[in-house]
């Protein structure tokens, strides 16, 4: 069970990193994009994308910044430079 969860987490992580390698995005934008591509692993649990994003940000894999978009302040995530170089 624990192994399955960890495997699922790894898959979700690589999916999020793949998305962010295309462009910087905010949480809802990521869910929307995944839904469009029929890859929404967060279906009916969209909130779970945030612990994943915050965890990746905390360990330095992702950076975040705030920016206005469509009349609201959004928290954008981007891949940290070192991670980009490794790819």
């Amino acid at each position: 069970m624990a192994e399955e969860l960890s495997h699922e987490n790894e898959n979700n992580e690589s999916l999020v990193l793949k998305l962010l390698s295309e462009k910087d995005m905010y949480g809802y934008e990521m869910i929307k994009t995944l839904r469009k591509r029929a890859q929404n692993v967060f279906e009916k649990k969209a909130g779970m994308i945030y612990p994943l994003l915050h965890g990746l940000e905390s360990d330095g894999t992702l950076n975040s910044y705030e920016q206005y978009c469509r009349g609201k302040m959004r928290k954008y995530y981007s891949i940290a430079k070192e991670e980009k170089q490794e790819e």
Partner: protein
Amino acid sequence: MEEYIKKLLEQVRFQKAHKAIGDELRSHIEDQIETNISEGMDRETAEKRAVEDMGDPVETGIALDKVHRPQVAWGVIVAAIGVGLFGAIIHFLLEKLPSSSDCGINIIGNITLDNAGYYLYNVVCGIVIMLGMYLIDYMMVAKYSKVVAALLLISYTIKNFAFYKRIENFDPEYWNQIPSVYTSIESFFSWSGPCIFLLVPLFAGILYKYKGQKYKGLIKSLIWIIVSGLVATGINNQEFRALVIVICLLVELTIAIEKEWIKVPKVQSITAIWLLFTVIPIVLIRFMYDNKILSLTKMNFVRSLFGPATSKSRAKELLSGVKTFGSGSVSYMGGKITVSTLNLISSRIGSGECYMITKVAVVFGGALAFAIITVVAALIVFGFVSTAKTKNQLGMVMGSGCMLWLAINAILNMFISFGMLPAYQYTSFFPFISNHKVVASYALLGIILSIYKYKDAYPQHIDITIRTKSKDLES
């Protein structure tokens, strides 16, 4: 929606992270509601579906709680305490040397302590203040920065004014102090001098309060820097102390402009500011020096910076006898006479606080001096790295300023210790090791620990305006 957020946040124990998490999730749900409405749902159904899409708030909350925990840099706390205890042992051992038996005696209240005891007392106070600063959120420092900085500058000015007045009443013939109100005033505000370094973290908060302003904010920031520099110079020829503070404030202002807190053309403004604070003072000092307008003490100081100075040559002389381990000896008259460095300390550098590193190298060997420099440098580097990693820009600017103040003082002290700069007027210190400013060193490290603690909790920007309860209710 609010019920979902509330339930989720109940699982996150770190209160400071609540606002940022709540805002992000609220924005997500609102976006989903808009999409649902555009697909033909009524408002109520749209919101219900959007919340359902988010999943179990308890599960998400527990997962977020694991990420958002206060970060405690245990390694740094242990290292800082270790440095203090190790420093105390060094102070005790140095005091036991026959050559340094002339060290002064310091009296604190009713407790009489020698230099080593006084150092230990300072270390204990420093550690308590460091832990206090760690517990107090650095946002509090920023919130009340203007009031505290103004109070500090005014207090120090009053203290200096009282000092002048007291001197007027001084009777040199009998070497007696005629008691006056000025003595009491000076004593009442005496805390302000040792606290003047606090202008560095406070200025970060002041700059943050000018966020969004243009040239008005820039001019106000420059006025704070000039006033801080003038006040910090004080009456005891503390130009070096003031210079270090001004450099730190200028670096903080530079980062603030670069991060667009103050909205002015970046390159032009930063270049103009640094030119203003380097070229003008250099030209002014050169002019005053050439025309002999400077006082004799200051003329000597300028001369000693670039030319030979007794204190510089004495430090070099001692260091010529340094061995890797243990004490060495210095040769005179082509090797005919050799004198142990242990016997030279007292006559060459005495009990001067500036020369702690020289003393350690001379008495215990270069290896130990190098080890101390490395540990202190590691603490400062940790400070820089953790502030660079923090998301919150205010923490980043405040932390950079604090660590820069320690780094510049450490570098200046090493120049003095190695005989490259004269120990002249300026009370130089090596952070955490010299008795002087040991409490300040720990206090600034405490601010860094506070920044590290909240590094994942605070967003890029945060509101630091002082609010009353009624204002909070309105908003």
